[in-house]
């Protein structure tokens, strides 16, 4: 009977009940989304170095090497000779080596000088097509664009662009002696690659030649056709090994190389170091989630408590019929618990629906991976616990307010 009474009472006050449910639903969506964003960021960080066993550069800090090579943040303080890259590229333990040349940009977006191995690497870790449009650069003066660059700057296949010297948003020195023709646009990956332009090592080397020498190069020049365009140095390179068991062995060999001082880092370890430096973000997101839940709780409490005065005659009638105070407070607690349960379930259901509906769209449009990974046993325990706690809280507050009036 008490359940029917609570349900009928809520139905009779359906407007305020819906407002309460909406508040709880929104706070549940906010909490789950904050959690998802945090996991998504972690996942994006992880995916940025997925398939890379070692990152090699000139000796510097682990995190600096990770940041400029994998996340395009900061710049290398020194470079590594191209000979070192080719030596490790040819090592029998190496399955794939991706060179990285940095230092130029286009309208604030960084340019990576690399080779076709970068696209092989993206293809190996992605379950989708590497290119949304076009193909990899085959000519020295061809460029491919990350998904976000193409979208933000509105470029299409065949358009031509000029690269600028330096990494800032506003460069005063443009490599305008040669234009690069867009050959392809990468599919969204949800990694920093989306915000870069990729050209061949030869192309990047060529635009740094003296103008007179550059002018002698033909417009159509296939990659590998001119050995003179081979760079002397690069910023870093990624290594994917044939056998991961040999990772530490190769890392040690690189770090102890007598030929050229170099540093190899394990990207997963460096990311863990980075996350431990950024653990305040996790705390801030958690705090945000708790704050959202707190605001919803106060909102629901204030809505329900506002109704207490209006419901005094109802409580007195119940008391006259023989209801104890405990029964009345249990009824109030049950009503609150019902609202919270309904709100939380609606919140979870809506978040799942949003995730299912938007995952494909978010991935293709923004490269945003939405890893909504609900831990059901935890959720099944958390929802009734939250309902019970809020029910007890409301019944307690109501008991304090009404104890002299009932």
């Amino acid at each position, binding site marked *: *009977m008490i359940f029917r009474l609570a349900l*009928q009472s809520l139905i009779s006050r359906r407007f305020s009940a819906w407002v309460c449910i909406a508040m709880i639903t929104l706070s549940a969506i906010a909490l789950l989304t904050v959690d998802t964003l945090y996991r998504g960021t972690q996942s994006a960080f992880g995916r940025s170095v997925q398939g890379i066993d070692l990152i090699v550069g000139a000796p510097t800090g682990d995190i600096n090497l990770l940041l400029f090579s994998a996340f395009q943040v900061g710049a290398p303080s020194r470079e590594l000779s191209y000979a070192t890259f080719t030596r490790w590229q040819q090592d029998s333990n190496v399955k794939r080596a991706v060179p990285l040349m940095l230092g130029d940009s286009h309208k604030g977006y960084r340019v990576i000088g690399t080779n076709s191995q970068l696209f092989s690497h993206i293809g190996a870790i992605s379950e989708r097509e590497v290119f949304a449009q076009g193909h990899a650069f085959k000519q020295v003066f061809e460029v491919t664009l990350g998904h976000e660059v193409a979208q933000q700057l509105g470029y299409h296949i065949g358009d031509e662009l000029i690269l600028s010297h330096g990494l800032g948003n506003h460069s005063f020195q443009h490599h305008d002696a040669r234009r690069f023709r867009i050959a392809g646009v990468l599919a969204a990956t949800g990694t920093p690659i989306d915000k870069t332009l990729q050209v061949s090592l030869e192309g990047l080397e060529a635009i740094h030649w003296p103008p007179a020498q550059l002018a002698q190069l033909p417009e159509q020049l296939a990659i590998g056709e001119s050995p003179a365009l081979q760079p002397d140095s690069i910023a870093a390179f990624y290594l994917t090994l044939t056998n991961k068991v040999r990772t530490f062995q190769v890392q040690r060999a690189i770090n102890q190389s007598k030929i050229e001082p170099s540093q190899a880092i394990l990207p997963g370890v460096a990311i863990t170091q980075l996350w431990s430096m950024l653990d305040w973000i996790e705390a801030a997101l958690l705090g945000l989630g708790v704050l959202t839940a707190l605001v919803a709780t106060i909102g629901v409490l204030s809505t329900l408590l506002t109704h207490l005065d209006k419901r005094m*005659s109802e409580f007195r009638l*119940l*008391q*006259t*019929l*023989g209801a104890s105070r405990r029964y009345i407070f249990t009824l109030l607690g049950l009503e609150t618990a019902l609202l919270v349960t309904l709100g939380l379930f609606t919140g979870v259901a809506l978040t799942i629906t949003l995730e299912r509906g938007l995952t494909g769209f978010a991935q293709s449009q923004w490269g945003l991976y939405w890893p909504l990974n609900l831990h059901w046993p935890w959720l099944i325990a958390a929802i009734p616990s939250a309902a019970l706690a809020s029910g007890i809280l409301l019944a307690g507050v109501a008991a304090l307010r009404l104890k002299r009036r009932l």
Partner: protein
Amino acid sequence: MPSSAAIDVNAITYGHNHGPHWHLPSWQVLAGQAVFLQAPSGAGKSTLLSVLAGLQPVQSGQLKVLGEPLHKRRTAQTAPWRARQLGIIFQDLNLLDYLSCLDNILLAAHFGKNKQPELEQKAHQLLQRLNLPADILHKKACALSVGQRQRVAIARALINDPPLLLADEPTSALDDNNSQDFMTLLFELVRERQCTLILASHDRRLSREFDQHIALCDLSQSL
């Protein structure tokens, strides 16, 4: 106290914490009697009925209702007793608007822990007896007229077959014809069940069929 006394009052003082107080020196009502308690509005009729129902404490003296020493009980302790032993009809706010008539009636049975079989059928028979149509049982209370609500309130008060019925201005919201019908039905049912009735009203015209007619001002003194 004679064994047949439904109410036995011995020098009680009662009233609201921050309101008027009354002293009632002595009063007895025998089981099965119908008592008409007359007083103008604001004279303390509702307060006395609340005290008799155990909803308000007596501040001094002794009060036994159906043998229950209410002067020894805190109001919170009287709830189960009230649910089983009393039927109460108010002047207004008799029913919970959001429940159906049936649920309003069954609510009293629920609190009275009335496990009688076929309670629903009993509610139905009571409503029939009160000249209410059968389809009213599942209508929400808010959809009823004032007269219908008062009759449903009688059915609810009687569902547990209580030995004592307290009615507080039950006809105040009814017109003369409905008021007379209501009183006739109430008396028929009270006599059938041989229960004690205390009806408080300011309207002397209702007092005709009662065994005892008491003016509250003769019974109690305002302090």
